[in-house]
């Protein structure tokens, strides 16, 4: 039912009107609390450290580009962006491919043990990734995977699988049986049905799980902290943390680095927001 709601969002739109002043006052207050610290950090990046020390709450006077220029040209920023991109894309592709295959079987096949298999996967929702981190490190060490992208990608795929399957299965189930029968009559096997009909139809759900996996991976800190000791493999969160502890006195530089590290997530989310809220509709209500 919920999946249907997302596949065919109720198209009825109320006329958009100007709300009353109270609505705007409250909305502005919410926005202010949310973004003032962020704006402060971004603007702070345009000041010099002496300016910040003299008046922590002031505006740049004059505005300096040097901090941002320094981070973009001299630090490992781009290297870390690259590493983050590789790890996040690898994780996303892995989660979506493995998740779709498993969810497809759990949604469209009738077989003995199906619900046991599903419960087996949902059990993973109860395993906090944090709790498994120490043995995970030891295992990756024994597999000689420490200091490789795989050390981050594989566990992230594994821990994202349960949620992915839980979100995807209702979507794949909701697609009418008649389509499968029609495809069968036209001589398309089940796998052809998956590839040519099911996947295109469940694009919204695929994008949602993809975005969730990507953002989680992009922001991840604990796992990379333990398994990526080699600085040349550091992802952006590790880079930000290192920069801030290495150059403690360079407040302006830290602010600039932090701002730049925020940007990709903010841009990405601006474009994907509708998709995330839309995709979650299926997951939060039956």
């Amino acid at each position: 039912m919920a999946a249907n709601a997302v596949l065919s969002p109720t198209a009825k739109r109320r006329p958009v009107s100007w709300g009353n002043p109270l609505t705007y006052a409250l909305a502005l207050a919410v926005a202010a609390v949310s973004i003032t610290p962020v704006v402060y950090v971004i603007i702070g990046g345009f000041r010099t450290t002496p300016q910040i020390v003299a008046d922590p709450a002031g505006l740049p006077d004059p505005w300096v580009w040097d901090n941002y220029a320094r981070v973009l040209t001299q630090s490992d920023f781009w290297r870390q962006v690259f590493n983050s991109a590789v790890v996040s894309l690898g994780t996303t592709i892995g989660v979506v491919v493995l998740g779709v295959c498993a969810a497809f079987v759990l949604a469209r096949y009738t077989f003995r043990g199906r619900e046991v298999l599903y419960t087996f996967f949902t059990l993973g929702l109860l395993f906090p990734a944090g709790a498994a981190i120490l043995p995970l490190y030891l295992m990756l060490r024994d597999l000689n995977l420490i200091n490789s992208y795989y050390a981050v990608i594989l566990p992230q795929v594994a821990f994202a699988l349960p949620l992915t399957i839980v979100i995807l299965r209702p979507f794949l189930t909701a697609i009418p049986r008649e389509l499968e029968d029609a495809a069968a009559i036209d001589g398309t096997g089940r796998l052809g049905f998956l590839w040519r009909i099911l996947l295109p139809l469940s694009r919204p759900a695929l994008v949602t799980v993809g975005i969730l996996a990507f953002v989680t991976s992009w922001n991840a800190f604990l796992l990379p902290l333990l398994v990526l000791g080699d600085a040349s493999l550091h992802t952006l969160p590790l880079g930000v943390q290192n920069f801030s502890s290495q150059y403690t006195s360079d407040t302006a530089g830290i602010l600039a680095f932090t701002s730049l590290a925020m940007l990709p997530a903010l841009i990405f989310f601006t474009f994907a927001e509708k998709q995330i809220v839309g995709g979650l509709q299926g997951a939060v209500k039956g």
Partner: protein
Amino acid sequence: MTSTNPTLDLAGGASAPPAGPRPARRSSARAAETRRKWYEIIGLTTPAVIVYVMFVLVPMGFAFYYSLFRWRGVGPPTDYVGFDNYVLAFQDPIFLDALRNNAIIVFGSLLIQGPIALGVALLLNRNFRGRTVFRLLAFVPYVLAEVTVGIMWKLLLSDAGTINAMLESLGLGGLVQAWLADLDVVIWTLLAVLTWKYVGFAIILLLAGLSNVPQELNEAAAIDGASWWQIQRHVTLPLLGPTIRIWMFLSMIGSLQVFDVIWVTSVPAVRSLGASATMATYMVDNGFFARLWGYGNAVAVILFAISFVAAVLFQRFLLRRDIEGAITRRAN
């Protein structure tokens, strides 16, 4: 949708599904088709099962095994100590502080974020010009990486930082604190930062839930003369129940294993005194950085056990009905 299907149990105890109707007569073509079907089932699920078992289930098993040894992580563990590591943990006042801090974060998050998120979600669900922009702005803290949030607040909250300077200039100098260094204050500071960071997640979930509330219901209530407040109280809120409970569940599990924000924001010295430690930071500090692998794994098992018991209890008492329709919907 009230389903009569067997409910799935998040905590385990799977209910066996009714097997599909057995063919009365098996022609060889049908046998071939059945075989083909099983090849597909096995071929498609095996990669996921292998990755999941290997990187989620196996490590948890090993955590328990390692936790029974005194072990520095070099060579195979040999110094078997039984449950000593667990006893040690519960005798360590720092670990007990970490437990208390986790409890503060779990309940503090639920009690503070819940009402705020509900209010903001109802507000941003109203239809007014610019709503999309305000929604985006409200989600910003949630989207940012934990590390950037941590470093940002660490700078803002430092002794000579912006927050204190602003308090001073507003004539509120009496409120100036050592936000991150005062042992009695730091956990509440961290709770505030966590609230700022994660309330957006609750808002996203609630907005998704709100968009599932049929518009017709609100319109019908409005025609019957109900005010906006009455509609929210008597129509929307009850329908939002499942979403609220699922958020509570996710928030609770997240609070029990919180690591990133705490680790980055709080000073190691303060953490090592227990004032700002959580179970997860305690585990990483002791297991990974102090190389007490056996002990660290015992803490991991305790963390897991507490999360597991909390999840099962929550599911038994609050989530039972919702699970049926939501996160473990039975396919059919």
